[in-house]
């Protein structure tokens, strides 16, 4: 059996032979197409009797060459005629008209509507959390302790190494840069004040929040999102298990509890890094550092830092759960919402940090 598709134009006759299938056509496609289009072959006798196999791709090719009309004279086996008939009668949809790109007003309107929908979603999660908490207060046996513990372990204990490393390095860097400046003023000893206030009050919480948003926020969104894609969330509901109590609430509570502890840990590591750097650069001994830290940094700063951690932790989990629940059952939506979750969480954290800075501007700054 000779398999290459062949096309011969004789006087008033077109002879097709060989294997007319997509796989066999591909190597000869341009040649065959140009032959078919070269002249008006519609009045010729089409002899398809020697075609050994014909699939729908080849049938479409022929049907288009015939300008979607049956040629006047056609010799073809019954089986291949059926294939051609199928192509002939196939419904042909118009090319889907592409919607014009939305105008400026439409786009702004869309953004506003999305914002409103997001705010609404966040409010719903918050309200549901309050309802769940009041329900759990009345039915304490249903408290999802295991899920909370698992989330604390995943978002907290597992994050200890990375937050320690990043905190330590940031401490070293800031201490080093400050030391260079301070030495030129002869104000070496103020390194304790600078490091203490900036790390405990500002850097520690924000640094940990950014890390946790990237690490735990994204994983929470992805987890809830995949549960939506695979209908696991629906399965939970079908078993009468509240998805807000089992899935959302443990994440909210766990991250709210964990974040202040992580902030404490990362701040301590950053201070340690700063101390090491101060010792090497300025020769300030650890003992001096410790002694003066208490004097230079009022304890209010620690309270502010830890409460920031509390609020940031809740915000990250809140945003993560919201976007997780917005995932539509397809992979594109999953990745888009995970990105949105992390970006929104970090933006919100920095916004909230600014608000904190305004409201606590007269608290905890040592008066010299």
């Amino acid at each position, binding site marked *: *059996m*000779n*398999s*290459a598709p062949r096309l011969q134009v004789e006087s008033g006759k077109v002879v097709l032979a060989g294997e007319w*299938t*997509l*796989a*066999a056509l*591909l*190597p000869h*496609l341009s040649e065959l197409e140009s032959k078919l289009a070269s002249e008006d072959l519609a009045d010729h006798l089409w002899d398809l009797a020697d075609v050994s*196999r*014909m*699939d*729908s*791709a080849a049938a*479409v*090719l022929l*049907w*288009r060459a015939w300008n979607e009309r049956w040629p006047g004279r056609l010799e073809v086996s019954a*089986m*291949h005629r*059926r*294939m051609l008939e*199928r*192509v002939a009668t*196939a*419904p*042909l*949809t118009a*090319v*889907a008209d592409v919607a014009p790109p939305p105008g400026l007003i439409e786009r702004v309107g869309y953004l506003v509507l999305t914002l409103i929908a997001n705010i609404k979603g966040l409010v719903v999660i918050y309200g549901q959390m309050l309802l769940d908490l009041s329900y759990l207060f009345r039915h304490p046996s249903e408290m999802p302790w295991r899920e909370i513990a698992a989330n604390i372990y995943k978002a907290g204990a597992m994050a200890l190494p990375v937050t320690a490393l990043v905190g330590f390095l940031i401490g070293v860097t800031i201490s080093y840069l400050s030391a260079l400046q301070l030495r030129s003023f002869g104000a070496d000893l103020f390194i304790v004040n600078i490091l203490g206030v900036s790390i405990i009050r500002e850097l520690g919480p924000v640094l940990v929040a950014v890390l946790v948003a990237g690490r735990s926020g994204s994983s929470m969104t992805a987890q809830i999102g995949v549960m939506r*894609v695979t209908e696991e969330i629906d399965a939970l509901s079908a078993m009468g298990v509240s998805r807000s109590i089992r899935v959302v609430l443990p994440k909210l509570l766990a991250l709210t509890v964990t974040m202040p502890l992580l902030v404490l840990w990362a701040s301590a590591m950053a201070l340690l890094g700063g101390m090491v750097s101060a010792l090497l650069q300025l020769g300030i001994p650890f003992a001096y550092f410790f002694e003066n830290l208490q004097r230079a940094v009022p304890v209010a700063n620690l309270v502010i830092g830890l409460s920031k951690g509390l609020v940031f932790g809740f915000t990250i989990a809140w945003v993560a759960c919201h976007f997780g629940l917005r995932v*539509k*059952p*397809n*992979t*594109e*939506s999953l990745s888009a919402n995970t990105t949105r979750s992390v970006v929104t969480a970090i933006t919100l954290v920095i916004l909230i940090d600014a608000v904190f800075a305004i409201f606590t501007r007269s608290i905890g700054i040592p008066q010299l």
Partner: protein
Amino acid sequence: MTARAPASVVEMRGLSTLIGDHYVHRNLDLRVEPGQIVGLVGGSGSGKTTLLRQIIGLLHPAAGSVRLFGHDLAAVSAVDQRAMLRRLGMLFQGGALFSALPVFDNIAFPLRELRCLDEDWIRRLVNLKLAMVELKPEHGKLMPAELSGGMVKRVALARALALEPELLLLDEPTAGLDPDRSRTFADLLRELKSELHLTVIMVTHDLDTLARLATHVAVLAEQRIVEFGPLAEIMAGDHPLVAAFRGGESTKVM
């Protein structure tokens, strides 16, 4: 491409599959000739789907060899490998549709990957495939998540057929279809087979489809193919698994 080799479409010799530290297949032999429609039957968890994954090279044999269209898939170059995989269509058990693409683009995907066909041609072919599985062109706009279970199966079949494959691998093609549809499905495959000399390997639990469609039956049990032969022969055999199947058949096929 040269004349179609008389070689078997799929030939497995002494195949062993190791997943983790557990042998799914051990010393398994199977030969599928062109034009056969082989029904692969076996208990749940006996490694039927794993066998299909071996055929298309998603798994590598721990021992023995798998030859597809006469070539060892692992031994040929990447270009030949792609060309070989284009000659087969696989219907995955869960459909495995691309969830981010609408139905139309799902079916058009393998055609567009050829980079030879123009959009009009592709559109006609996709509509043809949709019509083949009894879907309307309007369904092309739906997203996979909006489809019913049976529709997912049919769209997945349309996608598997998009490249006019010589070998069709079907994993539970009629699960989730109503009896009427699975009958039409069997008729469709039989027609395709007579037109295109299609070879089919299908995993199925549906006796109706098996009886209507299969020319041969392979029984997978005890980590190997325990019986393989023409449908009637196997159904008359006395393997316990077949007997269990037959027991169901008398009540179901009638």
